[in-house]
């Protein structure tokens, strides 16, 4: 099993969620994060005319654990639904998972996800 962590634009979140659900991946979690990318955020003009860097922008992190075999499909689904082609589109990371347990039933492994 793998854990897929995708950092996406909040305004694309609905689209990604819908796409995942259509592709059969219903279970997931969303975490609100703030993220900094290579372009170091944006420059903002404050009330008093001062300009400063806002480096941390709001992002949504989607987390879901999937079977090894499904990993690539999930990654592609997310990319398709979230890409706008402009800076700040985000990243997807894949982490190995050694075990999964469904609390309700105690099922483990692939059966649990």
């Amino acid at each position, binding site marked *: 099993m793998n854990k897929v962590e995708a950092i996406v634009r909040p305004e694309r*979140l609905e*689209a990604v969620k819908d796409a995942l659900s259509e592709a059969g991946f219903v279970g997931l979690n969303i975490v609100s994060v703030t993220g900094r990318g290579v*372009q*170091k955020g944006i420059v903002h003009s404050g009330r008093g005319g001062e300009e400063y860097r*806002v480096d941390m922008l*709001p992002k949504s992190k989607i987390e879901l654990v999937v079977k090894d075999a499904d990993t690539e499909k999930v990654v592609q689904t997310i990319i398709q*639904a979230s890409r706008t082609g*402009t800076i700040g589109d985000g990243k997807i990371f894949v982490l190995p998972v050694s075990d999964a347990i469904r609390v309700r039933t105690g099922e483990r492994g692939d059966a649990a996800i």
Partner: protein
Amino acid sequence: MPEISSGDTAWVMMSAALVMLMTPGLALFYGGLARSKHVLATIMQSFFMLGVITLVFVTVGYSLAFGPDHYGLIGDFSWVFLQDVSASEPGPYAATIPHQTFVIFQAMFAIITPALITGAFAERAKFSTFLIFMILWSLLVYSPVAHWVWSLGGWLGGLPEENGDVGIGALDFAGGTVVHINAGIAALVAAILYGKRHGFGREPMEAHDITMVVVGAALLWFGWFGFNAGSAVSAGALASNAFVVTHIAAATAMVVWVALSWIVQGKPSVVGAAAGAVAGLVAITPASGAVDAMGAIAVGAGAGALCYLAVRMRSKVGLDDSLDVVGVHGVGGAWGAIATGIFATATITGGAEGLLKGDSAQFFDQLIGVGATMLYSLVVTYGILKVLDLTIGIRVKEDEELMGLDASQHGERAYQLETGGSYAGIPVAQANGAPYTPAPSTSPSEARS
């Protein structure tokens, strides 16, 4: 025939509006002190009194409280549904405003008093039983005590009945006994009978929004000008004095409470500033027609100190009076009523004087007022709550409490902040210097197609 004064009518209407606003103000004061999963329920317990108690009071409560006297103890049903209560002519309680203006002003007092009690059982009361409790309490406790103190012929107050019977003359200008002691003692009983909140003394149960607490206190302060100065039912010297002393007492108690929190706890507390102001307002309530500006400093200082200590000692006695109704309204109200007997001056009362002027008669009358109200409120509140507890139950189930009353009692959630959301400044450039272009306008639906 007495004539309606536009100045007095304007003032009492305005005062009624101000006192009306106190109930939402209280809802915010209490709601801010509650935890976020109980905030709506806490607000609702005050806010909804505007609905229920208005109906109770204009249909029956007013008649019981202010209607023709029986034995100095209670009114009757002569004025139920406001029959014979003129919308245009003055009534017996205020010579220069329509009788119904007086009714609506009094209604606001009847509304906020039960709302005050709700702080004692916040975060665990079953809403259905709570409503029954409040309706019964308004009729069986509030109306009788209001009658004793403020009606023509009531045994505690000093207004003469038609047949010449006069009460003992305990002074309570704007409701120290009727409102605050009464609610404070009911709160004590309720805090005991409702029992402690799950996790009390073990988990933090801090205010979830102190800015809301301050807003609530500010609205209470603002409204209290109507509460006290409106109780003159005219816009002259008596109202003016009540206005002035109200402000000064609130200010003094605020300073004293903050100073004590600084000394005792190490830092000047913002919640303490709000609570202190309320304590001062409570204490000056009965005294606002009896003391002068410098007396108000004494009343306020006493309130700040006594209420602070009472609240700090709450945990020692293990009482879960969740939002400190006993410490603030019970103690503050009692202090105010007694202080009236100490600092009253004839220049304001037009007669009665306090201990400081060498007159002890008024002082003892005040003690009787305090004692009688406490005893009555204690016994009847206990009776009502005990019966309700044994029959339909006063408290929610444990999992409903843990889930939060907002969800379990009202099916609602107070706050739903968007997770994320685009950064919403006005960006002028990307930080690396490139001009800023927002993400293209492909919509999710397009993206999916």
